[in-house]
């Protein structure tokens, strides 16, 4: 039998990486839902899921099984092609951006150095923003294709909201890019060895975080769903598997924006490392996961404690406050950089 060539080896390696990352991401998504139910229950003085497995730990599995065995109901007046396309688009775009997220430095096994990242793009940050900017189609098309008034209103609201807050999201990240001088996520993390970016760009971080909550359609910016006024928003007409795809996409997006916040502002995988070489290469991944977990927790915390915005408040906040502050932050950062370099 011929030895596998180095090219087929590297393709195998990439496939293995994709499989592992997807598995971890989907598990994270499932348990983010469990965590959300538990934390919100705690905030509201309830127990939350408790019956399926110890502390309800098997609840995500039970929920998953239940939702896949539900009837997949398609209303008669929908635009069938787009009605199918929308959840797939939302789900695959939500998974796509994880491809450029670095989780740690690298590990050397049997002389081969393996990086904790599926692929290192030199414009990795822009890639994530591009994929996020496409994410609006899933919601908008779902709203349109359902051919019903509540989904349409939800889809319209969410398109307008996502377009508005995308600008602030980008502006919030601009300061970090200007300080680092690179769009590669790996280089941005490497540039934070002495000091995390959150201390250099506190305003940028706040803008990014606020815009990211809006971009993922979470409370207090969850008007696209707004149960009390829109029934369920853009996914009112969806059931079973297709609804599950929207649901998973939302949580995958939360994980992605948390990863991005960790990488850009909180030093990514940087943290104290010690011990034997294996531990030295695995500890950064642990630090990274811990930081992402903190962000997930804060997300849930916000959901459990804040009321929803009114729609005009949301738009006014985005355009009249967040955007000007973001622009000012960019101007101030460039002034400081220009003065300190001359």
């Amino acid at each position, binding site marked *: 039998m011929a030895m596998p060539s180095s090219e087929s080896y590297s393709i195998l390696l990439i496939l293995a990486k994709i499989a592992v990352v997807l598995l971890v991401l989907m598990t994270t998504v499932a348990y983010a839902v469990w965590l959300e139910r538990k934390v919100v229950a705690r905030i509201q003085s309830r127990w939350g899921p408790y019956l399926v497995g110890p502390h309800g730990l098997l609840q995500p599995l039970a929920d998953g099984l239940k939702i896949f065995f539900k009837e997949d109901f398609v209303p008669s007046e929908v*635009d069938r*092609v*787009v009605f199918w*396309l929308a959840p797939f688009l939302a789900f695959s775009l939500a998974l796509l951006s994880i491809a450029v997220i670095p989780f740690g430095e690298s590990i050397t096994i049997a002389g081969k150095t393996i990086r904790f990242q599926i692929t290192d*793009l*030199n*414009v990795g940050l*822009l*890639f994530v*923003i*591009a994929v996020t*900017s*496409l994410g*609006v*189609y899933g919601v*908008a*098309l779902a*709203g*349109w*294709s359902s*051919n019903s008034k509540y989904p*349409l209103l939800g*889809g*319209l609201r969410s*398109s*307008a909201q*996502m*377009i508005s807050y*995308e600008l602030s999201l980008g502006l919030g990240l601009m300061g970090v890019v200007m300080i680092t001088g690179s*769009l590669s996520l790996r280089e941005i993390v490497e540039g934070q060895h002495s000091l995390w970016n959150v201390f250099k760009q506190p305003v940028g971080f706040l803008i990014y975080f606020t815009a990211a909550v809006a971009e993922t359609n979470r409370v207090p910016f969850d008007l696209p769903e707004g149960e009390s006024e829109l029934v369920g928003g853009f996914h009112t007409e969806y059931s079973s598997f297709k609804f599950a795809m929207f649901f998973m996409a939302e949580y995958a997006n939360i994980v992605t924006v948390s990863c991005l916040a960790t990488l850009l502002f909180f030093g990514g995988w940087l943290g104290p490392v010690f011990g034997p070489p294996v531990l030295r290469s695995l500890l950064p991944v642990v630090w990274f996961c811990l930081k992402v977990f903190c962000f997930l927790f804060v997300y849930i915390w916000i959901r459990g404690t804040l009321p929803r915005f009114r729609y005009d408040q949301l738009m006014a906040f985005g355009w009249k406050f967040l955007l000007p502050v973001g622009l000012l932050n960019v101007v101030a950062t460039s002034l400081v950089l220009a003065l300190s370099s001359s």
Partner: protein
Amino acid sequence: MAALFYIFGALAILAALSVVLQRTPVYSALSLIVVLCSLAVVYLLLGAEFLAVIQVIVYAGAIMVLFVLVIMLLNAHREEPTDRSRVARILGAPLLAVFLGEVLYAVWQHFPPEQTPAAPAVNAGPRAIGELLFRNYVLPFEVTSILILVAVLGAVVLAKKQL
């Protein structure tokens, strides 16, 4: 790499045809998004990662979202087939043929099929593009942005009769 180029080139052309031939506005808009994304892949194959990503962000992620938003606002479903105007019926196909021939001729003149041009080794990184835009072409760039600003103001004035 060449195979990828042909796949996405063909996809771009097919999707472009679909933009014109679809009867439902949303399908046309979606096809246009496919065209723009295929072009982004072609840029990527030429080594212009920055340009490819910007193409997706600006065209597919911003401009086309507005298109889709407007179509949704109008709630336009299937378009009613109208009887084409007489001018279009008589002159449409010949004009199309002439225009297509012109484009093909120009391409043929510039790149004769014997000597396939190698992919130019351009530096299309963010720094290079930034220097070109803000140093060499700063005046056209600023004039364009003023033009866009004027267009935006015009749209606002037209939409809001009394300010």
